[in-house]
């Protein structure tokens, strides 16, 4: 009897040792094919080594998983890694002590962490003014331009030369309309494409303090003459039926894929949908710009999400997190992910590896997004980090809609955006005082 007991105790002790794998909880919001991508990354990493085990858990959409993480953190059981969308960056950063900067995690675990290896426009978004990288870019996309080649041909336009500037876009739209096309141009993610990315693309301020990167007292600057000029242009196009508003967020994308609208500005991530579902010839192009603005085109800002490391966990777990981040930033893994999902590669090495493999030649247009980003950034184009940003995006939507429906002038709307947006920024500043 005693022997049995001892044997059992020994067996359990041994099995505990054998299972001394450190588990790392990773909460994400990737569904369908992207969800498979996440699970495969975890599987690969777990298969390569036995010390750590990454456990990815789908926790709903970006805002749902953030709510879950906040609740869990307040109850003392946050995950190790949390995927947070780009508009939540300021919230994550400003919560003092809730997160551990990625740069610190890597350094503490003994990894050589060179921020310069990362594409500056991508990593810059997630970097503190001090240069320390706060979160790990994971799935990043940017704003580009798509055109319907068949519609162009039918309107007598040269489908192999997509309009590169806004004046050219207006001309093309007029020709499309003249040839009977009901929706020459539409816009998705209007705040992101027409105000934020627009500002960076033209190297003008979207907000003060380097668009918020340099301090919580940043305030919006979208009522500038250039912004007003652009929204005025779009408003006129709307009046003439050249630009048709098709909804908020990515809802307008459906009207491009169906062939209804001939041109659209939206995320690079839309490519997969177009490739699969469009029944017409299409082309990817760089975002249009105003040629008379000095410094344009500069670079565009990213969308998507990054991985944040939560505080308050065991030190062995942090080592595991560092090992995982090192794994997914290797050029091979990066390049494979980029090819699979369409999200941007975050290191220049990964970009070069993809180029060498001939991927961009095979699938023309897939490198447009990278080309827009792989430039030296300026203080005005490094990225945007503003608090309460989700609400500010909604303000942008509400005010711009009133311009498209003719209720407000562009000037009124932009001033309203600045006024209401700044109220949100003030609130955020107050709530996150050091």
């Amino acid at each position, binding site marked *: 009897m005693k022997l049995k007991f001892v044997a059992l105790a020994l067996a359990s002790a041994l099995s505990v040792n054998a299972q001394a794998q450190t588990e790392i909880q990773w909460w994400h919001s990737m569904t*369908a094919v992207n969800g498979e991508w996440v*699970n495969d990354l975890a599987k690969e990493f777990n298969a390569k080594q036995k010390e750590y085990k990454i456990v990815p858990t789908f926790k709903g*959409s970006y805002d749902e998983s953030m709510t879950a993480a906040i609740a869990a953190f307040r109850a003392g059981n946050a995950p190790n890694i949390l995927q947070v969308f780009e508009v939540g960056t300021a919230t994550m950063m400003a919560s003092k002590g809730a997160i551990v900067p990625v740069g610190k995690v890597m350094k503490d675990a003994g990894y050589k962490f060179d921020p310069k290896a990362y594409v500056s426009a991508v990593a810059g978004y997630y970097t503190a003014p001090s240069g320390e990288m706060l979160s790990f870019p994971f799935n990043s996309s940017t704003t580009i331009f798509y055109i319907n080649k068949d519609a162009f041909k039918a309107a007598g336009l040269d489908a192999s030369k997509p309009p590169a500037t806004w004046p050219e876009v207006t001309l093309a739209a007029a020709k499309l309309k003249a040839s009977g096309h009901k929706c020459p141009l539409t816009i998705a993610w209007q705040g992101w494409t027409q105000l934020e990315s627009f500002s960076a693309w033209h190297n003008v301020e979207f907000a003060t303090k380097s668009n918020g990167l340099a301090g919580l007292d940043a305030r919006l600057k979208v009522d500038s003459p250039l912004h007003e000029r652009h929204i005025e242009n779009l408003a006129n196009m709307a009046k003439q039926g050249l630009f048709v508003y098709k909804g908020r967020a990515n809802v307008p994308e459906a009207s491009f894929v169906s062939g209804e609208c001939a041109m659209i500005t939206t995320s690079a991530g839309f490519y997969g949908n177009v490739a699969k579902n469009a029944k017409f010839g299409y082309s990817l192009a760089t975002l249009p710009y105003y040629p008379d603005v000095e410094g344009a085109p500069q670079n565009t800002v990213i969308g998507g999400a990054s991985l944040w490391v939560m505080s308050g966990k065991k030190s062995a777990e942090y080592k595991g997190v560092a090992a995982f981040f090192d794994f997914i930033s290797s050029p091979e893994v990066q390049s494979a992910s980029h090819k699979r999902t369409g999200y941007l590669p975050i290191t220049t090495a990964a970009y070069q590896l993809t180029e060498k493999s001939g991927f961009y030649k095979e699938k023309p247009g897939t490198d447009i997004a990278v080309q827009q980003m792989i430039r030296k950034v300026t203080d005005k184009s490094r990225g945007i980090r503003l608090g309460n940003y989700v609400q500010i995006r909604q303000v942008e939507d509400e005010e711009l809609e009133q311009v498209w429906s003719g209720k407000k002038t562009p000037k009124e709307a932009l001033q309203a955006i600045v006024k209401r947006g700044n109220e949100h920024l003030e609130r955020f500043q107050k709530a996150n005082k050091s």
Partner: protein
Amino acid sequence: MVERNSFLTFLAHAIMILGVAVVAFPLYLAFVASTHTAQEIVQAPMPLLPGGHMWETYSKALIGGGAGAGSTAPVAHMMWVSLVTALVITFGKITISLMSAFAIVYFRFPFKGFFFWAIFITLMLPVEVRIGPTYKVVADLGMLNTYAGLTIPLIASATATFLFRQFFMSVPDELTEAARMDGASPMRFFIDILLPLSKTSIAALFVIQFIYGWNQYLWPLLATTSEDMYPVVVGIKMMVAGGDSQNEWNVVMATALLAMLPPAAVVILMQKWFVKGLVDTEK
């Protein structure tokens, strides 16, 4: 109903058909959408008649688009979790509400008014608003990732109590008097007389609460820590691409309709109980 008025009967059918057509049309559309390919749906306007891709879409929905679909938990297990959760919530809520409503309507006790309003106020602040603090309470009690944690917090609202209170108020006093004169104890009255009378209300509430429990999304998402305690509604969300990726509308509709089958079955089954209850209460 009582007289054979053929005009009224015709009118009744006409109105019912109109009502059903309007109310069921969106569901019909969902079904049609699930039988086409994603491309066909996106080319406006979508055809109004079912297409030929039904098997393709539904097997995709059940088995998953590729190797290793978004969720690691098999659909069958998720349905089981949903079933247990929905049933526990339903039975739990109906039971405690019957007892509370009985106490409030048929007894006089100190602070009765206070308790009535306390229970009633739970209608005024839905789960979503207090979800953060509720999570903390559940976590502190060690109930995360358990069936108890999934169900008990959702029992804390007064819909059922309110309904039963309304119903009990309308029960004739003569019945109560007769019971008291017969020397029956309150519980006797409750079980032998009140409950049978309440059959239709209980049946209606059963349907409502079952569906309420079945369709829960946000709370299970927060209150579970591993994907194998996810109910089926969460599983659906996982298969639906959002944000940048494409939305496969046909698969979305198919999975939504599949997830709707058990609640729909409950509705159909309870129909029979309705009729039975009606026959029983004919005195």
